[in-house]
């Protein structure tokens, strides 16, 4: 059933996201033309058109990034908590499958958005030689990083990407949880949702701050200090460790939001 949910979820979101991607790619071609010719000529008309094309490209990049988040949050809200919820919440699928389908589809679109934005930037950057330069530059960078820190630079990049990805999913779940909680109220559902989003945000920051304050004096801190100073472990290992800890922290938040969302959709659902 999850597969079928995903299929219809992609159908529903694809009809918005794919045209957005196409627009972005089109503006990137425009920007490319602008950089290659229009800006350098003496023709004022072409100059203005060229700079407009560049502006359009920048707007499109920002627009696609913002829209991908908006579309995913709005999809959850419209599909499960508005009128369509009557159809969706009475399908023979579990609440878990509903949330997972929304989350997976969002994650895929987030990843695709990053990919398409990169692609659009490459297209805009005109020559194929530039792409080659960027690739070799990256290789250089990795080599230097690897050489300098004597550790695998790609691992750090991978960890960073995973962190971003998990962070996006956790963010998504935070939106889902606040919407689910807000819509369990009989009136002013949207106002409650926004309110709960900030309450959750505050709680997360408060707990995070508290945790750091506690850790400062705790055994873990000493342990870490012991590792880095006493046992003379490199700073790089500490970096790895903190990356992994951050990913775990995000996973933990995500899990909490996930269970909040499930509980409120299952037990406290209150469609209008």
């Amino acid at each position, binding site marked *: 059933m999850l597969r*079928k949910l995903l299929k*219809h979820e992609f159908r529903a979101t694809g009809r918005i996201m794919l045209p957005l991607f196409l627009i972005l790619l089109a503006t990137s071609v425009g920007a490319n033309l602008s950089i290659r010719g229009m800006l350098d000529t003496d023709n004022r008309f072409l100059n203005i058109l060229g700079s407009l094309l560049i502006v359009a490209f920048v707007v499109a990049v920002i627009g696609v990034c913002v829209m991908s988040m908006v579309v995913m949050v709005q999809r959850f809200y419209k599909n499960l908590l508005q009128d369509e919820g009557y*159809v969706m919440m*009475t399908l*023979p699928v579990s609440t878990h499958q509903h949330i997972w389908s929304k989350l997976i589809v969002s994650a895929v679109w987030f990843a695709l958005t990053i990919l398409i934005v990169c692609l659009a930037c490459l297209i805009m950057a005109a020559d194929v030689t530039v792409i080659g330069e960027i690739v070799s530059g990256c290789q250089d960078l990795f080599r230097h990083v690897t050489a300098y820190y004597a550790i695998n630079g790609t691992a750090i990049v991978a960890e960073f990407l995973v962190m971003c990805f998990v962070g996006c999913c956790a963010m998504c779940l935070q939106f889902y949880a606040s919407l689910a909680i807000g819509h369990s109220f009989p009136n002013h559902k949207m106002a409650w949702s926004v309110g709960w989003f900030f309450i959750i945000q505050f709680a997360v920051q408060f707990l995070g701050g508290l945790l750091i304050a506690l850790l400062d004096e705790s055994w873990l801190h000493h342990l870490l200090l012991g590792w880095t100073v006493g046992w003379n472990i490199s700073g790089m290992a500490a970096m790895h460790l903190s990356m992994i800890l951050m990913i775990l922290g995000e996973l933990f938040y995500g899990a909490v939001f996930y269970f909040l969302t499930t509980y409120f959709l299952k037990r406290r659902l209150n469609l209008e």
Partner: protein
Amino acid sequence: MAVLECKDLCKNYGRAAALDHVSFAVEPGHIVGLLGPNGSGKTTLIKLANGLLTPTSGEILVCDTAPGKATHAWVSYLPERTSIPTWMTTTQLLDFYQDFYADFRRDAAEEMLQHLNIQPRQRVKQMSKGTREKVQLIMVMSRAAKLYLLDEPIGGVDPATRDYILSTIIGNYNPEAAVVISTHLISDVEKVLDEVIFINQGRMVLQASVDQIREEKGMSVDELFREVFKC
């Protein structure tokens, strides 16, 4: 075995009781009218049976199972408001129902849609309000379900559409299934009902067969309703 059963069912919204110790059972093969004035708790009861709300106390069971993933496969539900996704085309809507419900009779649905002259590529968004309601009813009645829960299927439509809706229900429901129709327009549905349940202010007032009421009281259900719920 009862298809739908309530045991001492209560539902409160805050302090207000929407349903107050309701108990009844609906047997397979029966068409039951859930009748009561506006705000008497009909929709709450149907939402509880669909797992869209959770009981405050007591139990509601569909084929001896609490509402959830399993019962959703047996229940075909027509909500009070039109809720089919508006961005879909008719074909996509058919795909959707076929994907999720093993008991969906696509050919029956296609035939009914064709009868109404609805094009396969037409989007729900482009349809009139009345047509959307008919399309959703067609989807709901094209399933060979064990229980049909129809919330106000004839509220707010013209008399010709009312006839169309009622004949679609009679002509398509699975004879081994039970049908529960909630409405306050009693004279229109009276002829299609086996049995009626009256509820008022969240309490069950009466459960009886239509012919029994006519035989024993010498009046139609509509007349009895007006007498029971006299303001």
